[in-house]
């Protein structure tokens, strides 16, 4: 997926967010140095290519009361992980869902799903729902709760020159 210099300028000018003004795209277009119609076309193209996932507001989960989260991990049959992973990701309480390699024998899990809830009990109840969905294709499970944030830096994208 290649980004040209205009795409990179668009990323640089929008990654901190859109300005809250009636014509945010006109502002960005001026900063990038293209006309607004060209910016619209670029944004549609970046969305179609998956570089932009969506243009949206991210609510603060903690402020809204979703203070508990757990990284649930599952050992799912390789032949079925693609189909089942898609169903787990579609659950409305799962915020991230990935297939990752196992690290045997210590780590038999190949499906990771981050679960959010208002309490530990609610997270466990959601986790049971995932277990039920996976059924016999799942041979092992665990959940890792974070006990401390050790470092948190914003993941700033550095478009390549």
């Amino acid at each position, binding site marked *: 997926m290649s980004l040209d210099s205009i795409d990179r300028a668009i990323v640089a000018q929008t990654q901190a967010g859109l300005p809250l003004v009636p014509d945010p795209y006109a502002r960005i277009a001026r900063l990038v140095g293209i006309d607004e119609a060209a910016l619209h076309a670029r944004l549609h193209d970046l969305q179609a290519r998956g570089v932009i996932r969506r243009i949206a507001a991210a609510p603060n989960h903690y402020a809204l009361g979703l203070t508990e989260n757990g990284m649930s991990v599952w050992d799912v049959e390789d032949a079925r992980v693609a189909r089942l992973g898609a169903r787990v990701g579609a659950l409305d309480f799962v915020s991230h869902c990935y297939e990752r390699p196992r690290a045997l024998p210590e780590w038999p899990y190949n499906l990771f799903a981050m679960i959010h*809830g208002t309490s530990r009990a609610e997270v466990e109840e959601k986790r049971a729902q995932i277990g039920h969905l996976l059924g016999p294709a799942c041979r092992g499970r665990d959940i890792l709760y974070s006990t401390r944030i050790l470092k948190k830096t914003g993941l700033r994208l550095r478009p390549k020159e």
Partner: protein
Amino acid sequence: MTAPGAERLGTTDRRILNRLQEGFPISPRPFLDVAEELGLAEDDLISRLERMRAARLITRFGPFFDAAAMGGAFCLCAMAVPADEFEAVLTKVNERPEVAHNYERGHRLNMWFVLATETEEEIEAVAGSLERETGHRVRRFPKLREFYVGFRVMA
């Protein structure tokens, strides 16, 4: 899923938050478009968003980029660090600028962090040098497949 803390928000703010977790229009007057959908005035919508952003109810508003599509390499890593070495290892890990975030988790693998570098080779180089420096393995869990996520917090 429904967020209980959203009760602190008024009905209008909740409708705004719910609407804007889906696509924001690409148009000359996108706030006007959304305001009309919600039966609001454009300036009212914008000032409510300003207020919610200032109150940190919205952490970010704008395009969300796929980090991997941007170029660059990312890898979730985990280490099993004995309790008496934890702080010393933590210092060595956290001082690397490539470590984007790091969480302590309740498991034998108790330190989980994300490495973010320009290339795949640098992931290996950083992980390898942390192993030599700390004397502990750095397990690599790169993303093999990402599943589309339906997560939306209904306020």
